[in-house]
């Protein structure tokens, strides 16, 4: 497994007040020795001031003034820790329904979703909501942590019955890889260290699972897509004829000599060279930021996409997508928005709302078509010029977009193309 060494793994946690999310993150950081002494001192002082007998691990995830005053997470906070096996980025997001947009944001870049279930309560509405978002955002791996096992006497049958409940739920969603771990974040059981209290549990504790879950094949390595960010034309003698198309490979693999096509124009050429800084590359893959040169002088600019001649995305002005609405102002029917997809910005209108999803019951609401904050709807959108799209389920980078309000410049929605 040496090959996984030094990989970066991004995971998301969602949770509300009292389900132990902050304690779990605090425990992971604390037991993996990612907490510094001055941080610990500060937390010990605060714990004492608040009258806690032991160090309140949840305080490690304390955020902004408002959040501390209210004792909740509002915005996504990013936290970092490293073990000898991997570097981790945690997108720590709130779990309450009014912060769906922040959960969606955190989920958009995650490889793994941690779903917390209180062992005393089992699968509840919030579990459904978090799982639905994980499946909607196509997080490849879900780890269900059945927490607070200490409060149910570490009983195996409690754990098993929750596993069955969750299997029932996840079978209705598109979640590929689910694992279950009985933990007590408060006591430290099965978080970093194997639990002495649950000998009946044979699998790895949480941290070991995070360190070893196989993520190399989560990226799409089949469909080569290269959205052009900009063109570099250095004005110096040494590189007089250099014309480099730069960008980050969304998916797939490109090699020098590959026949490529420029979209939407359809011009074809051959890759002459690829480089990162002064290092020449024979092949480059997702998600490397590279510069490419082509054999032929053709018109390529920001917003265009280079693909292989025999494997194209759909070039279209009409898309169907699941759209999550972020703004306090409802979506205006037939109003123009700026749709940002890869490096391509186009004007767009929401032509039709097909249905809304109740994220608590995962039921379709066919009659309610008002797009308000935190709503998730299936919509039809038309753009003024073609987009080069793949289905989100096949390709996170070329299947996703955001909508920007022209008047306020705010990011008002995020979509996943179907």
């Amino acid at each position, binding site marked *: 497994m040496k090959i996984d060494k030094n990989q970066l793994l991004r995971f998301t946690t969602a949770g509300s007040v009292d389900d132990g999310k902050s304690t779990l993150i605090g425990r992971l950081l604390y037991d993996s020795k990612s907490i510094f002494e001055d941080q610990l001192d500060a937390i010990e002082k605060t714990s004492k001031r608040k009258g806690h007998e032991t160090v309140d691990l949840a305080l490690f995830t304390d955020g*902004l003034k408002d959040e501390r005053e209210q004792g909740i997470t509002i915005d996504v906070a*990013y936290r970092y820790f490293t073990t000898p096996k991997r570097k981790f980025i945690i997108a720590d997001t709130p779990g309450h329904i009014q912060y769906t947009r922040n959960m969606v944001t955190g989920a958009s870049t995650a490889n793994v979703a941690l779903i917390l279930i209180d062992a005393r309560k089992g699968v509840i509405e919030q579990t459904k909501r978090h799982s639905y978002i994980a499946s909607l955002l196509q997080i490849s791996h879900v780890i269900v942590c059945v927490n607070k096992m200490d409060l149910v006497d570490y009983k195996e049958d409690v754990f098993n019955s929750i596993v069955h409940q969750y299997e029932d739920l996840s079978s209705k969603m598109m979640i590929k890889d689910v694992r279950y771990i009985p933990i007590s974040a408060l006591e430290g059981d099965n978080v970093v260290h194997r639990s002495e209290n649950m000998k009946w549990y044979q699998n790895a504790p949480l941290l070991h699972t995070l360190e070893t879950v196989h993520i190399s094949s989560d990226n799409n390595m089949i469909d080569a897509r290269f959205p052009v960010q900009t063109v570099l034309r250095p004005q110096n003698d040494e590189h007089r004829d250099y014309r480099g198309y730069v960008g980050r490979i969304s998916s797939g693999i490109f090699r020098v000599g590959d026949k490529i096509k420029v979209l939407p124009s359809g011009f074809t050429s051959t890759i002459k060279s690829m480089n990162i800084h002064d290092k020449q590359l024979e092949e480059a893959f997702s*998600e490397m930021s590279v510069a490419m040169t082509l054999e032929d002088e053709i018109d390529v600019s920001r917003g265009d996409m280079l693909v292989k001649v025999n494997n194209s995305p759909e070039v279209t002005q009409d898309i169907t997508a699941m759209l999550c609405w972020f703004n306090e102002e409802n979506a205006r029917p037939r109003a123009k928005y700026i749709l940002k997809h890869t490096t391509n910005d186009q004007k767009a209108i929401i032509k039709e709302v097909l249905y809304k999803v109740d994220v608590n019951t995962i039921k379709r609401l066919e009659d309610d078509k008002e797009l308000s904050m935190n709503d998730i709807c299936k919509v039809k959108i038309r753009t003024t010029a073609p987009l080069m799209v793949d289905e989100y389920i096949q390709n996170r980078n070329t299947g996703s977009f955001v909508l920007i309000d022209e008047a306020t410049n705010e990011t008002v929605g995020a979509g996943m193309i179907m």
Partner: protein
Amino acid sequence: MSKYFLNYLDELESEAIFVFREVYAQFRNPVILFSGGKDSILLTHLAKKAFFPSKIPFSLMHIDTGHNFPETIQFRDDLVKELGVDLLVGSVQEAIEDGRVLEEKGKNATRNSLQITTLLDAIEDNKIDCAIGGGRRDEEKARAKERFFSHRDEFGQWTPKNQRPELWNLFNGKMRQGEHFRVFPISNWTEMDVWNYIKRENIAIPSLYFAHERKVVWRSDSWIPVSEYLPKIENEQVFTKKIRFRTLGDITITGGIESDADTLSKIVDEVSSMRETERGNRSDDKRSETAMEDRKKQGYF
């Protein structure tokens, strides 16, 4: 098993290069905020990679408190020459002389928060629409909530409660006249990542980061270098210690640590066994629990 994956440093590098190129494509007049510290030096290295073989298409902007380590200024001037870029300097000293800001008094006086006015003035005077900074989310709890593309209103203020959602690789840099953006390409890097990368790429950094002998005094739990700018305290004992700096800020507030680490390898080893955060030696952050959040809201780096 697939050989097609990036190790974490390559992935962080790729992400930062992508962000630099988005800045170039989306803004008219960006600058790189340059303090002479390792994070801003790292920014210039990543920018060089992002635009090779062109030179970096941005100026560097230094908000100069006047309380510098001489080594930092020398390093800055050499680097600017090497990169062939322009240097813009916003001077806190001038702002004090013009009466734009009032200097703090007393033995703990610093010019740290005075930089806010000078920074915002420099952004306005030079018609900067995007200031690229070396802020990292692991540094401080207010920074943990910061976006890659962070919008500032016409007063230069940050409103943490009303930030734009940032999903996938899609960065929204749209704004009105008079507003600007702060962009943080190394948001996802930790102190350890920075050092590992500096070592891997063999990036030149000021000698202050390496262990050296220096005259220091013990204040606010750290070794503060003696300099002409340091307010004197009577009968205070001056020591000569072998120290190095983990971060570089104003010479009056940057505490050194006792160390023998005089090579990049030794620094990496030392940092990986550190039990205190790097900003723990910065008295600017010790003032209150929300010192950073408060300064950031007003327009700080």
